[in-house]
């Protein structure tokens, strides 16, 4: 794990509103390079909104966000520059259904990085090997299982060679027997030193790989600690209640 002096992501006093609804309240968060962070909390607590603000799928109304040394404002050029280096994996995969798996993976590298097809395909195949489905490269997403689709989505993000990966509930839409194949890939990525922010309810994953677990409720960061501390000795009452609910059975 390499931690350089400058953090990968810095969020300062950030607020987000939907109309009059205060979705994110005064968020402060610093993420170092190579750090693995798991964000959890009850539904509606703003955890997805938080990571969607980092690549500007949602606009914040006040405060500062700096990603990989670049300030995130409303300038589309700055936004695109940040998005190039920040990958995202979605709950519902969002693969492009009219393209083969390989086309899904080479599209952005060719259009955005301007790599020639040969180079893009070679890298894409490497990442498809990494997620263990190179043999599906010529199939269409609709022909794959949910777990396979999510692994393709991870390979698609990796094909851009991002410096940060955001995971927005990557296993929530999967059948139970497919969850582990996706988590295995995420664990492998974590071991390679990828900077990761994962919104997930997989507490086993959090224990295994997270450097820090963040608990959010009602748009606020309530508590953040390394996993041993977070699970072993939760400080806040709301954290205790949440943990007892999801670990209780």
């Amino acid at each position, binding site marked *: 794990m390499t931690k350089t002096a400058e953090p990968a992501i810095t969020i300062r006093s950030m607020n987000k509103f939907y109309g009059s609804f205060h979705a994110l309240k005064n968020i402060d968060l610093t993420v170092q390079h190579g750090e693995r962070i798991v964000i959890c909390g009850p539904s509606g607590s703003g955890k997805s909104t938080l990571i969607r603000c980092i*690549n500007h*799928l949602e606009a914040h109304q006040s405060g500062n966000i700096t990603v990989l040394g670049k300030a995130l404002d409303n300038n*589309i050029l700055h936004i*695109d*520059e940040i*998005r*190039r*280096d*920040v*990958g*995202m994996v*979605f709950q*519902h995969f*969002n*693969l*492009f*259904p*009219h*393209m083969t798996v390989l086309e899904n993976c080479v*599209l*952005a590298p060719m*259009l*955005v990085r301007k790599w020639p097809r040969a180079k893009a395909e070679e890298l894409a195949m490497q990442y498809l090997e990494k997620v263990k489905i190179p043999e599906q490269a010529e199939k*269409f*997403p*609709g*022909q794959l299982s949910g777990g396979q689709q999510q692994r393709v*989505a991870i390979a*698609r*993000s990796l094909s*851009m060679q991002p410096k940060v990966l*955001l995971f927005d509930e990557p296993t929530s839409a999967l059948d139970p027997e497919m969850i582990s194949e996706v988590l295995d890939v995420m664990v492998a990525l974590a071991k390679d030193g990828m900077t990761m922010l994962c919104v997930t309810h997989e507490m086993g994953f959090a224990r295994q790989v997270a450097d820090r677990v963040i608990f959010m409720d009602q748009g606020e960061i309530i508590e953040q600690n390394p996993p041993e501390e977070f699970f072993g000795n939760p400080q806040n009452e709301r954290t205790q209640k949440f943990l007892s609910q999801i670990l209780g059975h």
Partner: protein
Amino acid sequence: MAMTGEMGRPGLLATLREKYFSSLGNAALSIICFSILALIVWKFFDWAILSAVFSAANGPEACKATDGACWAVIDARWRLILFGLYPHEEHWRSALACGVVVVMTVLSCLPYFWNGRSISVIWIGGFLAFYFLMKGGILGMPVVDEQSWGGLSLTVFIFVTTVLVGTPLSILLALLRRSELPWISALTGIVIDSVRSLPLLTILFAFAVVLPFLLPDWASGDKLYRAIFGSALFFAAYQAEIIRGGMQGVPTGQEEAAKSLGIRYRHRIQRILLPQAFKNALPATINQFVITFKETSLFIIIGFFEILASGNAAYGTGNWTFAFVEVYAFIAMIYFVFVFSLSRYGAFLERRMDVGDH
């Protein structure tokens, strides 16, 4: 007697008996219906083929001697129907121009040519070839003004140009209508709704006849092109809503995924949104193309001899006035060939695009 086929599947006779002769009442009804059907088919066959007169060699008098169809009128007047008022000795140019458009359409329907460069070359090349064949003025071909164009070539020209101008316009309108800036989407909405609430007839009339009073001479161009522009605008207003409907069928996650990969707006539209929107919009789009093809006949009211007008002229002059049914049947057949090909092609596209879905 057992009526089963080789593989144990019911044979033809067994199927017939089960479906049409399962009871006495059923059998009676079937026999009556089959008899009526047979009578109609026979009558038509007798009229269209057996008793028909095919050659115009003996003039209209030969037709009056029989009860059958008078296809002689087509033999005598086919040039008028297909080429309108186009000069007689130049008819080959009009025919060739029609052929160019057919070849261009067939080529651009082949998936092999579905990339920006091929399609542009085919359409721009084909359109220029059509235009210069029809208009002349180069390679020693005498100039023929748009006012003298007519018949099938004109119908095809109106249709192709309408679609060629209208399709990009409709995509533009659909994109503007879903703009994030409220005043742009509202303004586009007003434009689309205004055009849609006018009858095509009014629009053609306004563009052909009224516009020249409002525009300076240098800007008003030829009447044919003004009318085609009106027709393209009308097409675009409807087609824009069809495409917008297709866009709404594309989940928002598609655009978010493309954004998260850093793909720019232009490429998100070209590579992610439009291909999926077109697929969703395909059945309605084919419908709109078919309607547009048939609506070319409205150009008759602003004085153009498209195929229907030429047909009217074909039986309306001289001694053939009694043979209008045959002329209309002939024109209906031409419409049918075009429209039927269009819908079969649509069905082919739907099957082809379904590949990735399951």
